[in-house]
């Protein structure tokens, strides 16, 4: 089952998906994957299919919603959009992330003792 390390990865991927949907509105799985890759994240480096595990998880938590629609190239695809509770979660997570990264950043900036 899920290892602790995977949990961290999962968490970051969840956060990235939420943020993506928050900024670009409704999007299908492919679009989200593209977007995350464009930012340069390595989360989907091995395979893009992983994104769907993340999406179903977020749907189950009701942070995003899904509906079938038609893409700009006229292809049937499932479109996801962030929900109200998803926004709240994103805000919480963002704050949390910033606090943690802030602390870590400070720790890393400490001058080495010579």
């Amino acid at each position, binding site marked *: 089952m899920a290892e602790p390390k995977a949990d961290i990865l999962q968490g970051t991927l969840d956060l990235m998906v939420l943020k993506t949907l928050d900024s670009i509105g409704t999007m299908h799985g*492919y679009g989200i994957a593209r977007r995350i890759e464009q930012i340069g994240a390595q989360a989907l480096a091995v395979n893009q*299919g992983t994104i769907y595990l993340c999406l179903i*998880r977020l749907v*189950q938590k009701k942070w995003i919603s899904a509906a079938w629609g038609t*893409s700009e*190239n006229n*292809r049937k*695809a*499932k479109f996801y959009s962030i929900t109200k509770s998803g926004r709240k979660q994103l805000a919480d997570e963002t704050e949390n992330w910033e606090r943690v990264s802030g602390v870590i950043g400070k720790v890393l900036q400490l001058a080495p003792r010579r």
Partner: protein
Amino acid sequence: MWTPLEQALARIRAIFAVSALDKELDRELESHIAMLTDENIRRGMEPDEARRAALLRVGGRESTKELHREVRGLPFLETLAQDLRYTFRTLRRDFAFALFATLIVGLGIGASCTIFSVINTLILRPLPFGDPNSLVWIKNNPGTDAKDLSSQTIQVNYLRELRELSKSFSAVGAYMAFYGIGDSKLIGQGEPERLTTIPVSQNFFPVLGVEPILGRQFTEEEASGNRNFNGNNGPGVVMLNYTLWQRRFGSDPHIIGKTIDLDGQLDVIVGVLPASFDFGNIFVPGTKVDLYIPFPMNDQTNRWGNTMSAVGRLNHGVNIASAQAETSILAKQMNKEHPNMNGFDPFLSPLSQHINGTVRPALILLGAAVGVVMLIVCANLSNLLLARGATRQKEIAIRSALGATKMRLIRQMLTESVVLSFCGAVLGLILAILGTRMLAHLSGFAIPMLASVRVDGITLAFTVLVAVVTGLFFGLVPALQISSRTLHGSLKDANRGSSQGRGHTWIRGALVVSEIALACVLVVGAGLLVHSFLQVLDVNLGFHPEHSVALRIDPDRSYDNKEKQNAYFNEALRRTMEIPGVQAAALSDALPLGRNRSWGAGVKGRVYARDNYPDAYVRIISDGYFKAMGIPILKGRDFTPDDGTNSRKVLIVNESMARNLFGTQDPLGQVMDSNAIIVGVVGDVRHLALEQGSGSEMYLPIRQTTDYASVDLVVRSTLTDAQIAPRLREALLPISPDLPTSNMRPLQTLVDKAVSPRRFVVMLLGGFAVFALILASLGIYAVISYSVSQRTQEIGIRMALGATAGGVQKNVLLQTLRLAAIGMAIGIVTSLLFAGALRSLLFGVNSADPATFVAMLVILTCVAAMAGYFPARRASRIDPIIALRSE
């Protein structure tokens, strides 16, 4: 956000919607790949190339699906569902095995659940009273024997005073224990019928917390003025038992206020009791009670002596020990204040204990027996599964080669055994429902609460629990065994006919040995009880019940004085004797093995201390009784029709009474305190119980007393029971036009009823023992025939080297008997250890009864030999050429 429950539900739903959700994901992945391909083509790839790159980029579709499933569903349940599907497939393929296993488990679970229902009803479930735990049974003279009602019951005034003085009891209710079975004759509304009426104190039902479903309780005026009791002229009222209301009055909802004709007197129906409360079922098992009348507790009824059986309700917070202490002290004071009343030596026990106390040891025994049966069932199935596991090695090997983990294999195996066990539970439940229904409808069995035995929610829960535990229990060993075999080992083993690993054989042998040992214990237990039962049946009753019947013929109200009654008796006897085939006819007020009362019986001129005044059981009879009952007259004479109101008072005593009172002196001609002279001595009769010797017993002529509550006509004839009933009715028609003959009973039924609890236990335990034997023999057969088939080559070689068919056969049989011998040795030791616990149920048999043990050894050896014989014969017919060619 979803609540955890919603999430769980979504996940569970996801399991069952696997294919739909998989398809949806498929479509989504497909569109993803298509878009990626489009993109790649835009970047200048060839279409084929573009698609392949896209497929690679997206990753393994199957593994994504698998992970997706895991995320959205509950992996545990999904595995379970998978295991279940697989199990059902396997079991369908191996239908005979599944059927057999289901049958065995079903029989086992059916037996356990039936017994559990009985235990549940009698011991676990609260009595159908309000707050049953604060109810206590008040018994008089705790030292006296169990069946003598006269000394166990309490005089009315003691109870009245106890109510006044006691601080422990909030109320004390009572019923008159000397009611007569079939005392009231119901006339009108169809055939005349004898009904049994219980006189109860006004507060009896309120004390028990039993509310009528129709109408109301008795009032104080109705009780004190009840015209059924001498001299009263108040209203006559009755309450109906539920069964009578249903049977005789078609559950008439407007019955309250109507009248009912009992012995030519109209009584008003004031209430109907609920179905859950059946007096007979609870207080006098095996007796059908129909009506209740209020009993006046006053100085007049006090004069009747010990008559009341009492139930007290403890005040809140009072425990039984302190109530006992207080009541004992009060009783001492009361005894001192009333030197003329009978003694009062109260003993309190919880009402539930009074009711189920006598059957508790038997029930515990049956419970234990059924537990043993379940163990044998488990051992047997373990064995079957092991044998089956051996033939499934390849399948298991393939599964583990394909990556099934050890845990997963164990889980699969356990799922299979639990599924089997649940199939058995379904069958068992059906059997238990049938079984409890049968038990509840057993009539004439003197076992309390038997009529309310049924399968209820608790039993259902118990069944599920048993099924799960059983499944895990019998599946565990085979599951561990199978999964512990390595892939390498089993593939190597699979094709070779060599014997299995030592461990494997050892476990199967041990299982069979334990089966035999457990069967041993059951057979010994059942054997001891059967032996006791035979001893009881063999007891010299002192009378001969064969060819005799009894029929209630109480004189009507119209025979209102002694002369008329005597004339009625003369006429009844004369007319009965005229029926062709009748050899003897006589009257009695108390048949053996029924109710008992005792009176003081001192010899005239002797002085006795208050506590030492002798008493004796009383029977009021007519001449010819000893002939009709087959009781030998040892000395002196029988009564004659001339022993009447105007002649000298006479009595006849039994042997014990003659010995107790007069030792070696001649009892004939001795005069009692009652002025009656002893004219005869007759043989002892077991009138209390078959297991109990007689006490002093005296017979008074019916023409010299009015002190009888009922009259039974006892007829000995050469006619069958079916022939005699209509002839009796015809003969008696002129003098008793409303005579119901429906309650005519052969005397043998009295004996049958007396041994019924014993018969009940013997029947069940005997059944379990037979079942255990069958299972054990199946177990032996399975193991031996498996070992023969495993050893085919070996035997072939032996025979090729010159072993004879007889030798091989003997070899296999010896192997069987060796297992049986070990099992029996363990079984005997265990039986000896536990047989002591049976002691209270045994009669005339020692718990280490050698005959029983020898019989058990013989039976088990035969069973084992038979079970081993067939595989042995098969072994002896092995053709060495064929056996070796297959190598």
